[in-house]
């Protein structure tokens, strides 16, 4: 159970629905640990400034998160969270381990076009 204020993806079907129904999606797949929590916090705070992006989390230990753990883009990742950015259902960027707010913003601004000043 992830105790965040983000929307949770509980199943592979939820995940599929989210990335198909939304143009720009960020999914943070992790646990309630020190490398993951800061990334959830950053996403929670950026959510209001990036209304054109949907932010979700998914529990790393949920068997259904195979949809993220088995992505070719995360091959070689050895640190959670696995953060995946989708555009029109396709993975366009993936990062491993803790990220700063600036790192996340840079990806959102670059990959999801409409730059927003927070």
């Amino acid at each position, binding site marked *: 159970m992830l105790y965040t204020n983000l929307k949770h993806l509980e199943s592979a079907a939820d995940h599929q629905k989210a990335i198909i129904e939304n143009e720009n999606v960020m999914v943070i797949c992790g646990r309630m640990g020190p490398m993951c929590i800061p990334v959830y916090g950053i996403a929670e705070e950026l959510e209001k400034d990036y209304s054109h992006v949907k932010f979700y989390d998914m529990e790393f230990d949920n068997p259904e998160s195979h949809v993220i753990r088995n992505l070719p883009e995360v091959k070689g990742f050895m640190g959670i969270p696995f953060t995946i950015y989708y555009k029109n259902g396709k993975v366009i960027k993936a990062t491993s*381990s803790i990220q700063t707010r600036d790192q996340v913003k840079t990806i959102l601004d670059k990959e999801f076009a409409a730059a927003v000043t927070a």
Partner: protein
Amino acid sequence: MDSNNHYDAIVVGAGPAGLTAGIYLSRARLKTLIINEGTVGGQLILTHEIANYPGVESISGYQLANIMKKQATSFGCEIRSNINIRDLGLTNELKTITLSDGNIYTADSVILTPGGRSRTLGVTGEDNFKGRGISYCATCDGDFFTNKEIVVVGGGNSALEEAVSLTKYASKVTIVHQFDHFQAFEHAVQDARVNTRIKFIMDSTITSFHGNENLEYVDIRNLKTGRVSRFKTDGVFIFIGYIPNTEFLKGRIDLNKWGEIVVKSDMSTNIEGVFAAGDSITKRFRQVTTAVGDGTVAALAASNYLHELKIKQKQLITA
């Protein structure tokens, strides 16, 4: 002075000390802003379970931080987080803080609660292999190293305890430590020494990380002989303590040789109207409870300072 951007008190940092100060100040109906460079909660949110916070049997640090944040904002405290401080002026009666987005805030008093962070090695390759072989959290990433050979850097309690815990996954754990002895408690040292999966490289430090997509080897320098040797490894876990987040205060306020803010018993600093609390101040014990206590004292002292300042300013007007 823009009155919209003027506050009775600005708190720099939103860990338990800063949030407590925010609760006390805003409940005293003082206009209060908390500015935080990271995620609200500070290092508190990194604690999986807190079982020794009085009045709460067991709670995650994340949940406790969220409650503190909610309490502070419910009293009217404003919070700006994940924003950097570009400049600050503390010496004048009117304190100024400039943020990286260009906004300038002023206040009659400032409480510094910037907290601390995990120390990194700061050597070549460390940033490149974060999440691709380098980790700072055994419970987070240990299972990625099942049946692999890894290195743990450090000689304190965290390093030795985490090294032992990582033997649940790794086939071999090599502890690299800069001294010829450990700073950890004896029981932690003994637990590591009797563990057959753990080896030791003493008087040494990692000088660089190398690999292609993932970490493949490190260079280790023997600090006594100066000899550098190449060491093949699948991963490195770094546990080399904490440092206070006070670099931005250097030359602006009294810090001790470890960069901690020097405070008196009422949490006042060497600058009038500036107070400090939490993990970044000079003190021996760093706990959530001590941070909360410091934050309370700092807020009450700042409230008293603001009360006296207002009387002084009123007298100047009527004189």
